[in-house]
Each structure stands twice: as structure tokens, then as C-alpha cells.
């Protein structure tokens, strides 16, 4: 069971760092941004490229990738979404699909179809029968630090308060002198940078591959839906709950439980937990309330 907790924590860490960006965007611009997933993919690939520069350590490559992806997110807003502020959320959501497909194609052109992996060395740590690696510990630590910093930023800085005010009531906030456009650009930058870091953590743990976006799409949106679309804190909780449910499902030996031969749910079915979570939450919580800004 300890193993389930380890696995859940690692997976939730990667998903949460990506998911908070979806929540940030939804809370301020009120639409589900599917292009956000591509920022994670772009971030992973950019870190891979930066890490190939001789003498550049991985943390520096990650930081560069986060900044570059943040700027790409700002550019996407400038070119596309800033011109569509007044259309319906559904319209923006559909446009975000288009943007996602465009970015996907660009990534495919630049990096091609093959998978890529980071060449890392790390230790395996045994705790009883449970196993984790020093890389796992690092991923969880990076995610925890980022979430803590984001929390402090949103709640204890003047700019963070401005963002929360925008999320709570954009018109009123702007009337009261809060620079709405600048803060929206900041939100895009933060979302892009966080997605890039989450994508990099995922790539470090697994591998970069062209269909990485489809692999993370479902868990990320399930996590933010479970936690409340516009809640940054909720996205983290959502990621943890989802990850725990997914890992429990594939861990339990249902065959032995029923007194027969050992049988576990094949791991590819863990994504159906995300689908189930989405359905249940959407059925039970038709009205989602924003927590940010409260």
C-alpha cells in the first residue's frame, strides 16, 4: 500500500503542476484552455533541447524552458485570445483546440515522430517492499515548492491579490485601477511556465513522445474538474485524489480478493478512472464555484 502512496504522489505532482495553469486561465478568462496541454509538451521538448547545450545543467535548462514557454503562452494570447476576449467561453474553448493542434503540428515538424529520453542517473531507494527513486523524490519536491510559491504569490503579494481580484470580478477590479491586460499577460506567462515545468517533470520520469499531449490531457482536465475548474488549490487536491484512485485501481489484486487466481486491472485502464471522475463530478456539481479570490 505504501507503494500506491509513492506512485500516487509522484504522478499527482506532475499532473498538478500542469493543472494549476488550466485553473488560473479558467478563473480569470473563464474558458477551458486545451492549448495549455501543448505548453507542457513544448516545455518538455525545449528542456530537452536546452539540456543538449554543452555545459548547461538540467535545472538551468528547465528554467530557460519555463521562461521560453511562458513567453510563447503570452504570444499565443497576443496573437489569438486577446482578440477574442468578448466571444463566448465555448467559442474560446474551440479556438483553443485549434491552437493546440497548430502547436502539436509545429512540435511534430521540429522534433519528428520518434521518442526521446533524458539520460539521467539516479538511485533506487527501498522502503520495506516499496520502491522509489531519487528522481521521484526530486519531482515531488520541485512540485511542492512550486505549489507553495504559487500559493504565497497569489495570497501574499500585491500582484497576486490583483490576479485574485480579476478572477473574482474582472470589471470591478479594472474599474478600481487594477491593470487588467498586464495581469492577464502575467497569468499567461505563469501558466505557460508552470506547464513547461510540469511537462519537463513528466518527460524526466517517462519520455518525450509526440502523443504526450493526449496522454496528459485526460488526467489534467479530470484533476481540475474534480478540484473545481477555477480553483488553483482545488487542482492540486484533484490531482492527488485522481492519482490515488488510478493507482489503487491497478494495484488491487481483484482476482485474489474474489478467491481466484491473481488478476489486476491492466494499467491502460487507469485513464478510465479519469473519465469516470469527470462524469461523476459533472453530474453532481453542475455549478462550479471559483475559490480563487474568495
Amino acid at each position, binding site marked *: 500500500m505504501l507503494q500506491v502512496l509513492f*506512485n500516487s504522489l509522484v504522478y499527482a505532482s506532475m499532473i498538478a503542476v500542469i493543472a494549476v495553469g488550466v485553473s488560473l486561465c479558467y478563473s480569470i478568462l473563464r474558458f477551458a484552455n486545451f492549448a495549455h496541454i501543448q505548453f507542457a509538451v513544448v516545455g518538455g521538448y525545449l528542456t530537452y533541447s536546452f539540456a543538449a547545450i554543452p555545459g548547461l545543467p538540467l535545472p538551468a535548462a528547465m528554467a530557460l524552458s519555463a521562461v521560453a514557454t511562458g513567453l510563447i503562452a503570452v504570444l499565443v494570447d497576443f496573437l489569438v485570445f486577446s482578440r477574442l476576449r468578448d466571444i463566448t467561453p465555448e467559442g474560446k474553448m474551440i479556438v483553443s483546440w485549434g491552437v493546440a493542434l497548430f502547436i502539436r503540428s509545429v512540435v511534430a515538424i521540429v522534433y519528428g515522430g520518434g521518442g526521446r529520453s533524458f539520460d539521467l542517473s539516479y538511485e*533506487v531507494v527501498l522502503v520495506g517492499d516499496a520502491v522509489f527513486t531519487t528522481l521521484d523524490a526530486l519531482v515531488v519536491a520541485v512540485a511542492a515548492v512550486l505549489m507553495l510559491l504559487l500559493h504565497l504569490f497569489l495570497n501574499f503579494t500585491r500582484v497576486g491579490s490583483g490576479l485574485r481580484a480579476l478572477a473574482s470580478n474582472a470589471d470591478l477590479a479594472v474599474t478600481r485601477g487594477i491593470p487588467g491586460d498586464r495581469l492577464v499577460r502575467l497569468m499567461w506567462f505563469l501558466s505557460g511556465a508552470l506547464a513547461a515545468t510540469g511537462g519537463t517533470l513528466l518527460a524526466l520520469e517517462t*519520455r518525450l513522445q509526440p502523443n504526450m499531449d493526449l496522454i496528459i490531457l485526460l488526467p489534467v482536465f479530470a484533476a481540475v474538474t474534480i478540484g473545481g475548474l477555477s480553483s488553483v488549490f482545488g487542482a492540486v487536491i484533484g490531482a492527488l485524489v485522481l492519482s490515488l484512485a488510478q493507482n489503487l485501481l491497478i494495484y488491487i489484486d481483484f482476482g485474489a480478493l474474489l478467491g481466484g487466481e491473481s488478476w489486476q486491472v491492466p494499467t491502460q485502464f487507469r485513464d478510465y478512472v479519469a473519465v469516470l471522475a469527470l462524469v461523476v463530478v459533472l453530474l453532481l456539481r453542475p455549478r462550479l464555484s471559483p475559490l480563487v479570490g474568495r
Partner: protein
Amino acid sequence: MKNFLSLAFCSALALAAVQGPALAADPIEIGVIANLTGSAVKTSVQMTRGVELAADAINAAGGIDGRPVKLIVEDSENRAQEALNAANKLYNVDKVPAAIMFGGSGLMIPVAELAKEKGRVLVNTSSSSPKLGNYPGTLFSILPLDDIVGKELGLLIADSGAKTAAIVVPNSTFGLGVADAAAAAFEAKGGKIVKKVAFTEGQPDYRADIQPVVPVKPDVIITAGYGDDSRAMLKAGRELGLTAKWYAAYPSILEIENKDFLNGKLFGVDNGGYAQAAGKAVADKYGAKFNGTADLMAHVYYGYDALMVIAAAIRKAGSAEPAAIAKALPEVVSSYDGATGKIVWDARGQRISPPIDVIEYKAGDFATTATRN
């Protein structure tokens, strides 16, 4: 001017007289279906080069009964539908009596169905699914099927003294074919399979899949795979702290993720026989035609042997009709000693008792430590 025209006319006549016999001989057209633009192109190109080398050798020696061999190469794009389109074109439009194909069983089986329906010959150089044995008289394999290689793998594991084994393979015809044959051979020798993991390919990480192997602590892990998925599988094994030895079918097609993790811990069986004189001669031809042998892969030998046995069958039958080729193929193969060693077919035209190399991964490279059969 008149003199010049006369001279030119006479020269043309003389040239035609010199080239006459060669032009008069109708070429024998043989089809080649390979993945030339899809994913994992390199292996297909290697096989095609092997076929080209064989065609060069046949034509340099005067062709088949004076008729040159002409290859018609079609692209499968590594997709079943495109492979079928290619086969349709070759069998229906070009009307080739036989085609040589490189592709997985997902492509090979539909094309075999078509070849059977059309009454043509298909020579398999790459696929190893035991289901390919269902097309006797149509499909002939230069590559031994997975049940043969899997059995050899199981026997090798039993010989190593291992008592327990876990299976970790992709949930594919290839993975399960190898696993089942290896497990049967291992268990027949008293071994015990303590866990079986068949993971779905294409996922980014297989740690959760392989996790159940950790507590059962097997002596060895039976595996098979290739490409990115094999890399992710081995990575998961390392991250889970597995200390068991890995035994793989065709270990050299695994993508090694971490040399230190597998040095002295990865063993397996692979098709062999290339080190003999016939194989070396093909390697020399390859080096001369394609600027060295640095990129030469075993697939060259399979392509080479495929066309050579077809040519021998046409020669023996005295006809390039598909039925005559299909009938003559098993007869000529019994005395053919090729680039992939001696070819022995069962009644279905599937290769048995192939030369098997025992492989060990050490010092960051694959080394052949013994040869079986």
C-alpha cells in the same frame, strides 16, 4: 551528310545486334513490399538492399535461364492498408508471380490472405508470428517464427539453472508468441513462471505494469520488444530495482536504456548463421555497393536469401508461374546454404531448426557466446 547517316544507321544496327540477346530475354519481375516512408524505415531499407544485392548477383551470372531479374519495389508505409495496396498493384497490375515482404504480422497476414486468394507466392523476411504458418503453399518464411525462437529462449533459461521466471512482454502477437513458447519450454524442463505481465504498448511509462514482478523475486525475466517501448520497459525495471537477469528473444533489437544496468545481466537468443562464408560474401558485396558495412543489419541477409531461393525455385521449375514456384521452393531450399545459414522448412514452409546465436550483453555491447543448432 549521306555518309554520316549511313554510318549512324549501321552503328545502330550493330549495337542492336550486340544487345540483341539481352533485350530479347523477357525479365522476370519480382515484387518487393517494404516500409520505405513510415516509421522505423531503416530495417526495411536494409532488407531491400539485401534483395538488390541478390538481384545483382543473379543478373551478373546471366540471370535465371538467361532472363534477368527485375525488382518492382512498393512502399507499405508500415500500414496494413498501404501494404495491401502495394500487394494489389504487384499481383494485379504488374502480375508478379512472387513478392518479398518486410513488415510486422499486422501487415504480413493481410497480404498473405491476398496472395492466397490470388494464388501467388509471398516470402516473409521479417515477421515471426506463429499465425503465419496458416498459409502453406503461399507464404514461405526466411525468418524463423516466434515459437521456434521462444522455445530456444526457454531452453537457454532452463540450461542457465534458473528455477523461476517472470514474463514481461508487450501485449502483442510478437510479445505473447515469444512468451508462451519460452514459458512452455522452460516449464517442460521443470521451471516455474511466477508472474506474467503483458503491457499495452505506447504508454510513456511501465513502472506500474512491472511493479507486480518485484515481490515475487524471480530468478530471471523473460522479455521481448523493440524501439521506444523496450527502452521504457527496461527503464521501469531499473527504477524498480529489479536484480534478476533478463532473457530476451532477439536481444539486439531492444533499445538499451542504461548500459550499467544491463551489463552482464541481459542474455538471449537471436537468429544466427551470418558468420559463415555465404553471409560474409554478402557482407562484402554490401560494403562494395553501399560504401562500407558500418550500417549493415541482419535484415540484409534475409532479403538476400529470399530472392535467391525464389530464383532457385524458378530455375528448378523451369517456369516463373506462381504454382510452379510454390511447388519448387521447398525442394530447392533443402539444398540451399544461404547467407542466413542452412534453411530448413516444415511442411508449412516455415523455418525450423535455424542457426541460433546465444547472445550476452557485456561491456556495453552484444556478444555472441555460443551457437545452437
